[in-house]
């Protein structure tokens, strides 16, 4: 169902089930936008998603397309297996920062480096939501989490991994963008990025990657509104929002 000036309806590719995410969680918004894109490109009946282990593990309750559940971190490898077996289907992985940048870092980079014809939707919320707010590879320096109780300290725990920047050193990716779900404009930009990424896959152009800076109010220990400010402020400072690669060409900042 298109969202035009003439109104907004709950996207057809989103089920009616209430999502289990916390109030103000970026996963909900990302699901909604994903459903809108599946609707607009009319691909929900030929799309297979791979849900991660993470808060989004139950994505199959909400997205009206086939969905598989990967082992933690192996999400892009599972997506690779599906896409290679069914090259004419649209295949995406949907992953949190723990899944994508910690345990699954090797799979993430190698799938990108092989230029797998998949779309990776990366929800960067700087924490492990599902397991109770532990430090993620993307946790900001100084950020307090269950496993960095005095704040992340770069000398012993490292600094936040910038995944777009890492992937942008590779030759194969076709499209890499980072967006932020921090505001109305951010929602629009996210939708556009997702659409571009899926469109690229529909056209068979290669690997696409969208990093979405996203709120986890529960483990930001902030209200949903304050959480958006954190996303657009401190997070976006560390993770610059921009297009890194377009049509296979790296755009340098």
């Amino acid at each position, binding site marked *: 169902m298109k969202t035009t000036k003439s109104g907004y309806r709950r996207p057809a590719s989103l089920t009616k089930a209430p999502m*289990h*995410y*916390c109030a103000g*969680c970026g996963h909900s918004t990302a699901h909604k936008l994903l459903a809108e894109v599946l609707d607009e490109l009319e691909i929900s009946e030929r799309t297979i998603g791979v849900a991660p282990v993470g*808060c989004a*593990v*139950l994505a199959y309750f909400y997205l009206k397309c086939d969905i598989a559940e990967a082992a933690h971190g192996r999400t892009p490898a599972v997506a690779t297996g599906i896409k290679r077996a069914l090259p004419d289907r649209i295949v995406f992985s949907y992953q949190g920062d723990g899944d994508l940048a910690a345990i699954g870092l090797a799979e993430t980079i190698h799938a990108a480096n092989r230029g797998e014809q998949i779309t990776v939707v990366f929800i960067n919320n700087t924490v492990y*939501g*599902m*397991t109770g707010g532990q430090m993620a590879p993307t946790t900001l320096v100084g950020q307090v989490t269950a496993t960095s109780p005095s704040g992340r300290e770069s000398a012993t725990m490292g600094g936040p991994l910038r995944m777009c920047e890492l992937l942008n050193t590779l030759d194969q990716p076709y499209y890499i963008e980072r967006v932020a779900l921090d505001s109305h404009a951010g929602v629009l930009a996210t939708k556009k990025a997702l659409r571009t990424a899926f469109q690229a896959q529909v056209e068979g152009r290669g690997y696409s990657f969208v990093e979405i800076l996203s709120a986890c109010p*529960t483990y930001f220990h902030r209200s949903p509104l304050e959480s958006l400010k954190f996303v657009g402020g401190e997070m976006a400072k560390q993770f610059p929002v921009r297009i890194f690669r377009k049509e296979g060409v790296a755009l340098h900042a």
Partner: protein
Amino acid sequence: MHERILIAGSGGQGIVSLGKLLAGLAAETIPHVTFFPAYGAEVRGGTSNCQVILSANEIAAPIAEIFDSILVMNQQSAERFLKALDQDGLAIINQSLCNVPAPERHLLIPATEIADRLGSIKAANLVMLGAWLAHKPLIAPTAVENAIASHFHGAAPALATINIKAFRAGLARGG
């Protein structure tokens, strides 16, 4: 003395912290205590429940089948758990979010609304605790208030006040 207590509600209602608080305070005076939280899922927003057993003697099986007290804070939990109440047991029910018939062993308290009026729906769990303690005086109310005060110490003194008020409201309502 062998008191088996079940506390149940939804993810954000402070079910587990209430159980912990109760177990911790009980352990100061009661020889054998177990507390067990059951997470519905490794995910957000599901139901949540926990058990506390207080006993004068060694607790062989740290899990009860029927309960002497059941505190339910939402509809799903009421439907699921009330049947596990012992025939002489006591149920405290959060009337704000549960719609159940109220036979005599059931005490209906609009805990969420009370807490909301006091300034935070998150304090509903302490309304429930207060109501329970009014019937089962196994812990001194002052001990509860001290624990609340020290828990919120520093970080949010205003919250401490709200929570203590909620507890007292429960105590009053329960009595």
